């Protein structure tokens, strides 16, 4: 695949239910949390589900969510923390089963972009962790998977070729230049899907323990322009679909930056897409 026009992009934000997005103007005044998804889908065609990391997804809730979005809308769902951060040796296989059952409505409705496996910073490339990851990927086989590493020991050709062999997406991350963190790369390991997550580059707040500081970053136009070029030239020609998500949710910076990236990719130059109008690519 070498034609970037054949690639379908899904650009959105990590989560959509943020009260502070009302203050920043993304949601109209007085928007209730229960109506935020209705507003969100007017602008974006995809979102990451964060709450599935905190809590095992439940099929009825997923079903209700599917009913709220149009047919073309896609969800990327985070794998539950009991499978990434708080793994219990003899129980995790059961957790996978429960997760699959919870995801069933999304899969059936063809609204699942992929499962995002976000691994913790301490998840180094050790023998134990490698074995666990391989077993986890086996257990989750049949689902579209994207793996996000937070430790730079995984930057290794062997890792990338194994992901390629399994047709599993490596998540390209944009995060601060801090020692130990996974660097900014442009690697496609799955011809079906590439995935980029923008966490912001707030080096000072990254390890503060507060999400409000960690993800408080407003991407500059130059930074987004570099990414737009990389996406178009390096990622899009290599995959049939792309998922791009902004996690810098603080003060509504995520939807603002996502819309700007859409503008840049649409080659609108300095003309910015006004908020609350549908944007697609």
């Amino acid at each position, binding site marked *: 695949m070498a034609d970037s026009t054949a690639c379908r992009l899904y650009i959105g934000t990590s989560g959509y*239910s943020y*009260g*502070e997005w009302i203050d920043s103007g993304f949601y109209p005044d*007085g928007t*209730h*949390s*229960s109506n935020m998804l209705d507003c969100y889908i007017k602008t974006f065609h995809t979102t990451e589900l964060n*709450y599935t990391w905190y809590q095992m997804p439940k099929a009825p809730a997923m079903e209700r969510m599917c009913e709220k979005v149009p047919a073309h809308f896609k969800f990327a769902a985070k794998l539950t923390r009991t499978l990434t951060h708080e793994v219990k040796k003899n129980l995790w296989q059961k957790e996978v089963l429960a997760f699959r059952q919870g995801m069933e409505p999304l899969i059936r409705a063809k609204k699942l972009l992929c499962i995002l496996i976000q691994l913790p910073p301490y998840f180094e490339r050790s023998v134990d962790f490698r074995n666990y990851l391989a077993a986890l990927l086996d257990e989750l086989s049949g689902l579209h998977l994207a793996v996000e590493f937070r430790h730079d020991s995984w930057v290794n050709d062997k890792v990338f070729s194994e992901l390629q062999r399994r047709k599993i997406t490596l998540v390209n991350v944009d995060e601060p230049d801090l020692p130990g963190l996974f660097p900014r790369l442009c690697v496609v390991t799955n011809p079906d899907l590439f995935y980029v997550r923008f966490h912001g580059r707030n080096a000072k707040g990254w390890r503060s323990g*507060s999400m*409000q500081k960690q993800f408080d970053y407003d991407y500059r136009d130059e930074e987004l322009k570099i990414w737009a070029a990389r996406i178009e030239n390096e990622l899009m020609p290599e995959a049939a679909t792309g998922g791009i998500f902004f996690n810098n949710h603080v003060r509504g910076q995520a939807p603002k930056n996502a819309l700007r990236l859409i503008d840049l990719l649409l080659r609108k130059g300095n003309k910015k897409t006004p908020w609350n109008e549908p944007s697609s690519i």
Partner: protein
Amino acid sequence: MERAVIHLNIADFAVAVEANLAPTLKGRPLIIAPEGAPRAVVYDMSDEAYKEGVRKGMPLSRAKRLNQKIPILAPSFNRYEQAMKALLKETFAFTPLIEYGQADGHIFMDVTASKRLFGPSVDMAFRLKKIFKKAFNLDPIWSVATSKLVAKVATRLVKPLGEYIVAPGDEEAFLGPLPLSLIPGLEKPELKRLKEFNLFFVSEARTLTLEQLKIPFLQKAPLIYDRIRGIDPAPVRAFSETASTLSADHEFSDDTNTAGSLRSALYLMIEQICRVLRTRNLHGAGTKLILSYSDGVQNTSTSRLSPSTSNDMAMFKASALLLDKAWTRRVRIRHMRLICEKLCPPMVQTELFTPETRETKQACLIEAMDKIRKRFGKHAIRAGLTLTENRIGS
């Protein structure tokens, strides 16, 4: 804007606290109850004991009959109070809107206004869970919802361990398939009546209109109508650790039902509370006394203080009546807790020429005692009443 309410619940709180001190108790059946006391009842039990049929408030003799091998531990109310205080200290870092039970491991937090500072409510709940686990080795169930009602039902569903997030707007759908017995506020008589109508689940009861509900339930119908729809406007009671209440505890080394000992202990607690009130230039306008008997039963009594006061003797006068009101049984008392409520600033306007009354003389005496204690330590001077029995320490 709808609210974000977190409910943290440490299941079998007393057992969890005790198991922290004696890890061998973990994962085993355990009953907390005053074994030696006549007519003792179960104060708390582990999940394993619950599975064997033991319930809170059950006569201990009956619990023993279920399984004689279950170990029984005497309750240590002070220990649970201290553990609860430590947990609350952590939660106050996130919001001042906190409501909690009496050393029972239940905490409701309204974090609607805290999101800008601390991020999504789900993340706050998760962080607190981690803090509780790391700092106190206590693992709470947690839930996030838009009301106390829904949050409480959610934690009931995942007990003894887990979490539940009820997304805003999902309340009706969440409650629909649940049995009516899980809805807080529906008492035994209401549940019995609904059962008579063959209504067992929330979704079934919802088919009744408010008018229909009014026929069997009269004035309670609107409450039932709202509850089964997840509507609960009750606020998380605002609480400020420093300004709203003050409390003092006394645990008797030997259970007692001697009036002198009880009054001495009460006076000591009043001295402790009033000293803090005077330091903060506050008055208390209400008191609550909780007596814990040796069989695990608790009696509570409350009264208003009019006028509000920070005077030891005036507060004792009112609280002594409270003691008489709460002390209704012949069973010995193990623990006393006095809570001073409705803290308020003292009346600023005073008389220009104050006539010398009994009250002003008492105020002068207390002021003098405060000065002595400040200079020579709190044991330097004591009220005669506290010397009633030697075993009453300060």
